[in-house]
């Protein structure tokens, strides 16, 4: 940082470092910062203090790795546990370096770092050559679309700076790169600890006439991924300071946009031309890839946040079903059929994984079967969204082909994915628009359709209350249908067991059936334990606004266990039923149900009356 005065035309490079703790990765990066003058005297002073306290390089020797370990926990464990970002610059380039841990369970951190990197430095120990972990790193780096690789063959000082030792690893890597289809790479023999060939050319390796590591990083890129391909403009905000101005704000992702260009807004398909490209510094004729601008169009077409603007002649696809590579990042496993949120560009939609096609073992590249995904798993999955979104395959555009999964309850980011292609069935299977629809069918009834979703522990009284409610509705002339957990499990869902994945699928199917009943115009009473909040929310989102009433049939576990109408609690306690809700498997109580019925405090008749009163209040039935 302090080394050289910089001219204003300095290009911008995002890179990542991968390697394991033992390969000396932190040492290498620390060495680059030191030798590029990015470390100040006071930091250096603190470093030599800390080298004495925590260092692993022996007495009185500076441990450059300590420059990088930011968090107290890490210093104690002696490992790097997260992604850290470092900065250094030369006359020609400013580098942003994502430093990623090489530790086994941190695939997700590598994926995070790789998502914005154009270049990766892979570090190997010359004495060990390519190890399983190197292959793992290369796999992730490639998966995330990093096209340039620099192999730093480290610890040359411990191999007597031997040319033969370097050549052996270099050839091993070249063979592997060929097998993986990587053509843009270079290798450099270095010693991170002493600095040989890092920034300063080594006098101990006169036989090496290639670039130093820094030279390799400074070499001009062959082509920038973000500038290739057609322009994409995901709309972040609609800017309306007053009635005279309406602009769309976002960043150009790929290609470039010019005044006069004809654009299509997706998914709506409406078209208009660019009238102005505005910025605070004045209007532009052309907005290059990466520029954050405000577009004004020549026609007032309806565009909202999340839409994508693109040239009409090179538009992205629009689909609601995809095949994608996914990296799962959360401690809670990914369950097919469960509802999650998917964010792509500026758009957020509901998503379900419909199928895990296979999981990939990153070391052996073998395809493995999987029913769920655990933290740090990589897999190929089919996804189904609740609405069609514009996208590009990830290999074409990282910004319009990459997505994240978000937990709809905690809002945590759970995983990420890269779209391979849309599924044919989504583009060719169109929903049949029927002339007799839900509204028409329900017009023949004297009530509106709705779903009454009774949830609660086994023995809480769901079926008993639902039965009393249905009898009342029936006598009032309402058309009803009852779906009961035990009954459905003997037919439609008899292939399902009681594992978490199967419970999710059980409820998904029932939610779909209940929606069909709703379309048929019926008042549908669903009595299922339905222990997970997210599946109940899925059922609610399928039903649509105002037609889903969640009724929490609440009784303390102790009371349910005393009642034990089917003798199940006894069996669960004796261990003969694993995964029994309330005993071996959790029940997530509703946080905001339409109605809560405490069956240990009131009798069935008065509880049924409360449900009827709710239906009257919501206008489902006439009071």
């Amino acid at each position, binding site marked *: 940082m302090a080394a050289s005065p910089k001219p204003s035309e300095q290009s911008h490079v995002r890179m990542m470092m991968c390697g394991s703790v033992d390969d000396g990765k932190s040492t290498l990066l620390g060495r680059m910062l030191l030798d590029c003058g990015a470390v100040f005297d*006071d930091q250096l002073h603190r470093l030599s203090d800390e080298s004495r306290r925590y260092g692993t390089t022996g007495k009185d020797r500076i441990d450059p790795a300590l420059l990088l370990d*930011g*968090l107290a926990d890490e210093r104690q464990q002696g490992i790097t546990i997260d992604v850290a*970002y470092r900065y250094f610059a030369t006359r020609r380039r400013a580098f942003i370096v994502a430093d990623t841990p090489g530790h086994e369970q941190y695939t997700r951190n590598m994926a995070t770092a790789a998502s914005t990197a154009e270049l990766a430095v892979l570090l190997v120990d010359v004495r060990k050559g390519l190890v399983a972990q190197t292959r793992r790193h290369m796999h992730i780096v490639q998966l995330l679309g990093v096209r340039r690789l620099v192999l730093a063959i480290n610890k040359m000082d411990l191999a007597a700076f031997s040319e033969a030792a370097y050549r052996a690893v270099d050839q091993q890597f070249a063979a592997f790169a060929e097998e993986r289809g990587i053509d843009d790479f270079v290798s450099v023999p270095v010693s991170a600890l002493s600095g040989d060939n890092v920034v300063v050319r080594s006098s101990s390796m006169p036989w090496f006439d290639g670039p130093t590591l820094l030279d390799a990083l400074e070499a001009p890129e062959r082509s920038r991924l973000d500038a290739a391909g057609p322009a994409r403009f995901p709309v972040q*905000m609609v800017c309306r300071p007053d009635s005279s101005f309406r602009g769309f704000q976002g960043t150009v992702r790929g290609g470039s946009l010019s005044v006069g260009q004809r654009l299509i807004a997706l998914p709506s398909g409406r078209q208009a031309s660019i009238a102005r490209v505005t910025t605070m510094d004045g209007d532009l004729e052309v907005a290059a890839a990466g520029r*954050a601008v405000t577009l004004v169009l020549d026609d007032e077409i309806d565009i909202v946040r999340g839409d994508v603007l693109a040239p009409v002649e090179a538009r992205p696809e629009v689909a609601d079903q995809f095949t994608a590579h996914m990296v799962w990042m959360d401690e809670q496993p990914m369950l097919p059929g469960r509802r999650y949120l998917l964010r792509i560009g500026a758009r957020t939609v509901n998503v379900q994984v419909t199928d895990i096609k296979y999981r990939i073992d990153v070391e052996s590249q073998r395809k493995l079967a999987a029913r769920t995904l655990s933290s740090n798993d990589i897999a190929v999955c089919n996804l189904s969204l609740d609405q069609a979104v514009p996208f590009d395959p990830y290999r074409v555009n990282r*910004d319009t082909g990459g*997505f994240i999964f978000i937990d709809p309850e*905690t809002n945590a980011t759970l995983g990420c994915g890269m779209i391979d292609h849309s599924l044919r069935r989504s583009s060719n299977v169109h929903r049949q628009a029927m002339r007799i629809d839900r509204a028409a069918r329900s017009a023949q009834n004297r009530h509106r359709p709705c779903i009454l979703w009774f949830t609660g522990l086994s023995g809480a009284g769901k079926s008993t209350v639902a039965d009393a409610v249905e009898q009342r509705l029936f006598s009032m002339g309402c058309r009803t249908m009852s779906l009961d957990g035990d009954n459905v499990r003997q037919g439609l869902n008899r292939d399902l067991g009681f594992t978490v994945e199967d419970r999710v699928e059980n409820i998904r199917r029932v939610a779909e059936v209940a929606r069909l009943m709703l379309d048929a115009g019926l008042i549908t009473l669903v009595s299922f334990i339905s222990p997970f909040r997210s599946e109940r929310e899925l059922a609610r989102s399928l039903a649509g606004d105002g037609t889903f009433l969640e009724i929490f049939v609440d009784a303390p576990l102790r009371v349910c266990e005393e009642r034990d109408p089917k003798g199940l609690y006894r069996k669960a306690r004796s261990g003969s039923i694993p995964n029994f809700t309330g005993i071996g498997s959790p029940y997530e109580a509703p946080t905001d149900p339409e109605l809560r019925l405490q069956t240990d405090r009131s009798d069935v008749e008065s509880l049924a009356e409360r449900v009827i009163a709710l239906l009257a209040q919501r206008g489902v039935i006439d009071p």
Partner: protein
Amino acid sequence: MDHLDHLEAESIHIFREVAAQAARPVMLYSIGKDSSVMLHLALKAFHPDRPRFPLLHVDTTWKFAEMIRFRDARVRQLGLDLIVQVNEQGVRDGVGPFSHGADRHTEVMKTEALIQALDKGGFDAAFGGARRDEEASRSKERILSFRSRAHQWDVKKQRPEMWSLYNGRVNPGESVRVFPLSNWTELDVWRYVRRENIPVVPLYFASKRPVVERQGSLIMVDDERMPLRPEERVQHRTVRFRTLGCYPLTGAIESEAASVDAIIEEMAASRTSERQGRLIDRPDGTSMEAKKRAGYF
């Protein structure tokens, strides 16, 4: 696009993304150079509209008088909403750096006051000007840093940030701190100030100022509240500041750099980091992390 163009575009993207996702954003405005750059980027992000969120200044009551003058002039000139938060209880208790020490003063007048303001405003996103290159534990901070209902930072709950996708969703009471300048270095900031002609507090430029030498730092005598020790005497030296904060806790450096160009030139030759002059970061290498866990920016 050069390096600064990339940094600018990224910051604008972050501003827009958070403004679109948050219900009640606010921008922490601490009057320093980073805040000046951040404010400039916010103006660019929403142009021709204005930022639709207020600025918040946590006033410890010990800031340089020149900072307060600059703040008021700038806000008036741009026509922005400014919230000034002072921890009134701290004022009543007479908390200050001279009487209570740097740590206690910072905790009460800065961290507590900030939390009071965020709670009072019900803000679910707060922009801050912190940069990752400032300090080791900052280097792992996310651009959107998730905070619990108690404003706490939990390393395990920080969200992975992929591509340009920022997840700012929060439940009621939770919030995100947002750092649009995460990837900027001190030098980037100054080069951008020069390129864009961004106004900064004159204290950054060398001038003759009244200072005393205390524990190896040059402390400016900014008002009559500063008690002088018997051996201390006020000297008029040509100094400037690399960072700005509470005047009793901010060391000046001897410098002749009186323009942005001269500052950039001086930085190229400089061998000390900018936080070196800050007395609150001194005790040990991980003090910033402990403060962050408690809710500090």
